[in-house]
């Protein structure tokens, strides 16, 4: 029973050789649609079925711990057998990173008047893009941790921020490639000057492949590609959560568009808190969900009932989680 419900690739013996990364679920949706509840429910269900599971909250306003009934920190904490959870602390992530860079830069820039490193970096902590960047760094760390698990669930921040975070790798790679080609041009010319003049004035690292800037660019490129494939490649699945209300449907529609521009495919949408009978028909029509479903023909749908107060109990979460995992398994089975 247990093994038959395991998702494809989640079994260690199968996945270890071909793909060392676990199955990843990236749960996205508008604030209040139930991302955290769905993440927690899936995590509980997967761990009950024997997958070592890690569930991570990337939302700056955490409530994963509240849903799981356990206070969480930035380090993984075992909340039940086979299930660990953590809440990424973006503020301290930013601070730690900036402090580290500051200490590296002080000796180099201390004497420069135009460039006050202290002020620059203090301002950086508050600058736009910093949170998304910290989130991406956090995903990089989770990627490393994830090797010890069979499944990882990312409960993300509200859509806008998550979409910016997910688009960062592609934008960064574009910059890296262009800066790299510019840098190589500089090195090539420096080498040319040295060859012609035979002067010993130029630093030797300028001429070989060990220019620190080129090295850093190549290193970062490698890291970004790893993060990108963690978020995007085989066994990574974006789950978009929405409800039968107009704002949620419109936002989901936009999110799918932006995700596909960034190379992400939304294979499955979860419609949360659905009702029955006439009310369902009316709400699906009024919110535009009917039309949305028709238009997005390639997407698979999972409808979850409104669990009411029951959802706040571990049993309620397990029931919801089992519904989602069963539906996902059925879809994947049907798909293959």
């Amino acid at each position, binding site marked *: 029973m247990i093994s038959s419900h395991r998702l494809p690739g989640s079994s260690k013996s199968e996945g270890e050789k071909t793909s060392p990364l676990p199955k990843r679920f990236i749960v996205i949706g508008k604030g209040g649609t139930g991302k955290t509840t769905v993440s927690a429910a899936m995590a509980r269900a997967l761990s009950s079925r024997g997958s070592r599971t890690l569930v991570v909250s990337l939302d700056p306003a955490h409530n994963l711990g509240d849903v799981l009934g356990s206070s969480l920190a930035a380090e993984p904490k075992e909340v039940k057998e086979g299930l660990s959870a953590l809440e990424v602390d973006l503020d301290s992530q930013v601070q730690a990173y900036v402090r580290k860079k500051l200490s590296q830069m002080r000796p180099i*820039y201390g004497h*420069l008047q135009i*460039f006050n490193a202290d002020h620059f970096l203090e301002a950086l902590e508050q600058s736009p893009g910093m949170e998304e*960047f910290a989130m991406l760094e956090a995903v990089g760390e989770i990627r490393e941790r994830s090797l010890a698990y069979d499944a990882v669930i990312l409960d993300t921040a509200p859509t806008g921020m998550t979409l910016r975070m997910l688009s*960062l790798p592609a*934008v960064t790679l574009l910059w890296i490639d262009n*800066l790299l080609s510019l840098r190589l041009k500089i090195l090539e010319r420096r080498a040319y*000057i040295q060859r*012609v003049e035979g002067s010993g004035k130029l630093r030797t690292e300028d001429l070989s492949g060990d220019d620190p*800037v080129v090295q850093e660019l190549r290193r970062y490129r490698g890291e970004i590609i790893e993060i990108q494939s963690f978020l995007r490649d085989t066994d990574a699945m974006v789950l978009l959560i929405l409800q039968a209300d107009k704002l949620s449907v419109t936002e989901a529609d936009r999110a799918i568009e932006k995700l596909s521009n960034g190379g992400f495919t939304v294979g499955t949408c979860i419609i949360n808190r659905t009702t029955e009978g006439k009310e369902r028909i009316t709400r699906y029509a009024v919110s535009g969900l009917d039309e949305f479903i028709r238009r997005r023909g390639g997407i698979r749908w999972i409808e979850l009932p409104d669990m009411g107060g029951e959802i706040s109990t571990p049993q309620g979460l397990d029931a919801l989680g089992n519904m989602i995992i069963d539906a996902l398994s059925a879809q994947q089975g049907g798909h293959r």
Partner: protein
Amino acid sequence: MSHWDILELLKTALRRQATEYVRAEVQALEEAFALLLVGTFIGLPAPTTGLVLRLLPHLGSELELLERRVAESDDLFAQVAGILKI
């Protein structure tokens, strides 16, 4: 002076001239590189924050160069004119 001496002299002169242009090009490229990273100060599109943070510790000399260029900017036209032999 032998033919060989004249040839050597010519070679040195040509070499100096050749690298002069490349030197100017290297300097312009280095400035462009540094400017791309700190260009937000003057409204250029900026690379992602993470990338800038990664590279800044290695760019001491590039930023010094920028600073020097700002200090010498009075004489910028003279420099350009010098390079182009106007």
